[in-house]
Each structure stands twice: as structure tokens, then as C-alpha cells.
């Protein structure tokens, strides 16, 4: 039983969360799919960079170790590359929940972004005007 083998089901669950969030993104009251992937990619990159630095420090400090026979042997410094999977899972699960999870529409009221304009528009029954305004803002952004 290798480290990669036990990681696989956990990573698949995390990827499932990401797929779910990507499908939800772009719905009324939720951020666009483009922004979803931007936050997802950014968070993943930041966590991988931090992991590369701090996991090495933690292993060098002797906080934990691995049985050699079970890891791939590919290391970045002291760190087995498999250790990246914990950070990947954290980003792949928590970004979808944060950006596109349930309760976002309610939380959008605290934002002055286009998403909340659209949400407010829909609530007031002026979805046409609200959507048009949002589209203008979306175009202006890119």
C-alpha cells in the first residue's frame, strides 16, 4: 500500500467538491466561473508554495517521518512530493465552499459587487435591468 494509493480516494473527493463548485459558479448571486477558477488556481498555488517551504522545515525539525518503502521516493528537498496532496485537498474543498458554497447568495448582501446587484434586482423583480447592468459591469472588468 503506497502513499499515492491512499491519497487517491481523498483527492477524488476533493476534486468532486471542485467540480460541484465550478458547476454552481455563475449562477445568480454567485461569482462568475472565471472568478471561481481564478481563486481556485491562486489558492492552490499559494498553498503549494507554502507547503514546499514549511513541510521541509517541519520534516527537518523531526516532527514526522515516513516509512521509506511506502513513498514514491521523489522528494522536493526533504519533502515527499505526496505531501502536496494535503494542501491540494484543502484548496480543492474549501475554495468551492467559500466561493460558490451554500449561503453565498445571502452573504453577497455584504458585497457591493455585480453579483449582489443582480441578486437584489431579482428580488425586486427587475431581473432584466439587473442582468443588463451586471453584463455591462462584467464587460467593463475584462
Amino acid at each position, binding site marked *: *500500500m*503506497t*502513499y499515492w494509493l*491512499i*491519497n487517491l480516494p*481523498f483527492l477524488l*473527493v476533493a476534486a468532486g467538491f471542485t467540480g460541484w463548485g465550478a458547476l454552481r459558479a455563475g449562477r445568480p448571486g454567485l*461569482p462568475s466561473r472565471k*472568478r471561481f477558477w*481564478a*481563486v481556485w488556481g*491562486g*489558492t492552490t498555488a*499559494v*498553498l503549494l508554495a*507554502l507547503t514546499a517551504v514549511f513541510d521541509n522545515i517541519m*520534516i527537518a*525539525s*523531526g*516532527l*514526522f*517521518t*515516513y*516509512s521509506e518503502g*511506502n*513513498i514514491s521516493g521523489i522528494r522536493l528537498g526533504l519533502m515527499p512530493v505526496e505531501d502536496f496532496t*494535503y*494542501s491540494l*485537498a*484543502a*484548496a480543492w*474543498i*474549501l*475554495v468551492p*465552499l*467559500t*466561493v460558490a*458554497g451554500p*449561503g453565498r447568495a445571502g*452573504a453577497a448582501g*455584504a*458585497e*457591493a*459587487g*455585480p*453579483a449582489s446587484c443582480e441578486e437584489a434586482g431579482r428580488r425586486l423583480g427587475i431581473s432584466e435591468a439587473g442582468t443588463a447592468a451586471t453584463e455591462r*459591469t462584467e464587460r467593463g*472588468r475584462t
Partner: protein
Amino acid sequence: MIGFAYLAALAVSAGGMVVLDWRYRLAFFRRPGFSALAVLGMLVFFLAWDVVGISTGIFLRGETEFMTGVMLGPELPLEEPVFLAFLAYLTLDVAGLLNRLGRRDAA
């Protein structure tokens, strides 16, 4: 005292996260209930992963003087869930910060 070094490092790091969270309202200072559930859920997920790794003999506690020595289970030191919760909180803060930057661009 050196046995508390790892816990102290985690506490200092978490303190920095709380300050950022407070200043920019990233996670707990924005949606406390959601953030608590997210960290708790992520912690359970990570611990299940740890238990699989430990029971298959992949993860071993290191020989170090920087930990308290309090064990929650075989090869599972007290510090591990603290670190895992910290990792979840860090992720929430980073995601919250990038999401916030996205909102600013949109405004």
C-alpha cells in the same frame, strides 16, 4: 519548555492569521458559522486521511524534542490536529483574500 516549541510556532502562526482575518474580514470575521463548520469538517477529513496513513504504516511520528509527547493515538501526536486545523484556516484565509481581490476588481 522546548516540548511546546511546535505548538507555540502554530499558535504564533495562527495569531498572524487571526490578525489578517480581522483586518480584511476574510473568514471567521466575515462568516463565523460557515468558517467554524468548514475548519471542523476539513479537520475530520484530514484526520481520517491520517488514520489511513498511520494504519497502513506510512506516517510515523518523528523523534523530536519539539513536541509535548502527548499522544492521541499510535503515531498521532496532540500537535497533529492543531496543525491540520491551522492548515484549514490558512486555506480559508487565502481563499478569502483572493476572493476579496476579485471583488475589488469587479467593483
